[in-house]
């Protein structure tokens, strides 16, 4: 991809170095995510995938480098402006991260109450709609602890969509789900992308979802501490000669 097009990308990461103190996790990451992409962050365990996600959603500041959204830097702007940018994101955390002291309805209503002028009734209707969308209609008054892991995750997804975000971030959405539910979640993600027109960024090592829904990807390597491949995962599987990438995408099967 030529450099000018990268700059215009919906999300553009430039020379990003991530570190905890003096411990460098990944360095020199540069990639772009186009509008409408389903972008996969992949790599072995402990290579910094979730850390990269934390940098993208503004929870952790980069040690070096920049993250741009529509050409606007996330970390160079004033905190108030950054907060405004972050509000356009929807984030689904690994465990759902629902607020455990609130019911599902209250969880989803909270961002709506904070940022919209809707009446209580309109919010109630919207909450029911979002819950129905993820297959949890009728569970409004349940507390998160009363739900299974998969249901919590779907409720987390409903909350992530509450404000109709531009960009959806998923941290290992299918971890802990059985194959059928994980497939359903993939379908749901595709549906959402199409209906909201959102860009999706997903951390996952679920091979099946990587190859079915992913349209673009980076591969992070823990040993060299940088990205060693990027592009459409299906193409990477067909064309990449890098042994680590091949091994990952074929589950280590040398004959694939």
């Amino acid at each position, binding site marked *: 991809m030529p450099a000018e097009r990268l700059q215009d990308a919906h999300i553009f990461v430039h020379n990003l170095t991530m570190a905890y103190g003096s411990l460098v996790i990944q360095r020199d990451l540069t990639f772009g995510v186009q509008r409408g992409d389903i972008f996969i962050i992949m790599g072995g365990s402990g290579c910094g995938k979730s850390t990269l996600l*934390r940098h993208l959603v*503004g929870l952790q500041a980069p040690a070096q480098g920049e993250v741009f959204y529509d050409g606007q830097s996330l970390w160079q702007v004033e905190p108030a402006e950054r907060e405004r940018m972050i*509000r356009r994101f929807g984030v689904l*955390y690994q465990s759902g991260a629902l*607020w455990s002291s609130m019911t599902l309805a209250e969880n989803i209503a*909270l961002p709506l109450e904070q940022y919209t002028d809707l009446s209580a009734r309109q919010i109630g209707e919207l909450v029911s709609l979002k819950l129905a969308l993820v297959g949890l209609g009728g569970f409004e008054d349940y507390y998160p602890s009363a739900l299974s892991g998969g249901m919590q995750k779907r409720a987390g997804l409903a*909350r992530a969509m509450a404000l109709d975000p531009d960009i959806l971030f998923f941290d290992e959405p299918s971890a802990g789900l059985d194959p059928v539910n994980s497939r359903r979640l993939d379908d749901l993600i595709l549906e959402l992308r199409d209906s909201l027109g959102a860009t999706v960024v997903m951390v996952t090592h679920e091979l099946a979802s990587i190859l079915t829904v992913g349209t673009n990807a980076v591969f992070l390597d823990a040993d060299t501490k940088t990205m060693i491949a990027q592009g459409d995962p299906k193409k990477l599987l067909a064309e990449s000669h890098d042994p680590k990438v091949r091994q990952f995408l074929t589950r280590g099967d040398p004959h694939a």
Partner: protein
Amino acid sequence: MSLISFLVGLILAFMGANQLRQFGAQIYVANLVGLSMAREMGAMMTGIIMAGRTGAAFAAQLGTMVVNQEIDALVTLGLKPVEFLVVPRMLALMLMVPLLCIYADLVGILGGAVVGVGMLHLGAAQYYQQTLSALHLLDFVVGLIKGTVFGILIALAGCLRGMQCGRSASAVGAAATSAVVTGIVWIIVSDAVLTVMYNILGI
């Protein structure tokens, strides 16, 4: 809370009784117990109990929220965790600790009275009158100011340790422990500072 305040009043009275009896001044046990409960021990005991009970609970609640990424979820929705989680807890303790403090003062004075009447054979009415004449509203206010300060510090210590919690289940336990230690240290230090300040101001 009741039991501890009652016993503290009782202990103060016992200790005072033994000393004051040598001078035949048993009646001043009422002054001793009343003043020390109102100015010092009521607030101090309430503070320490609340640090162990509520400070630890705050740290555990917020720590669990950190581990579950619930705090991250607040931040990415643009909600400030301090405004949302810390301020309400601080207000709650700022109000409740002084109230509990008054209660502890009264129960402690009652404990002293039990010793005064039962062991020193002072008349109940006499003890009551002596307490009234020894105590001024200002003494309670002094204790309440301490209680308010302790409430703020307990909430701060609990919330601070909770927010600093690591990302594992065992870190939540460590956060709760550390909140109690921090809370009690802050209470004692601030108590010393306040007592010196009162002394300088002459109240």
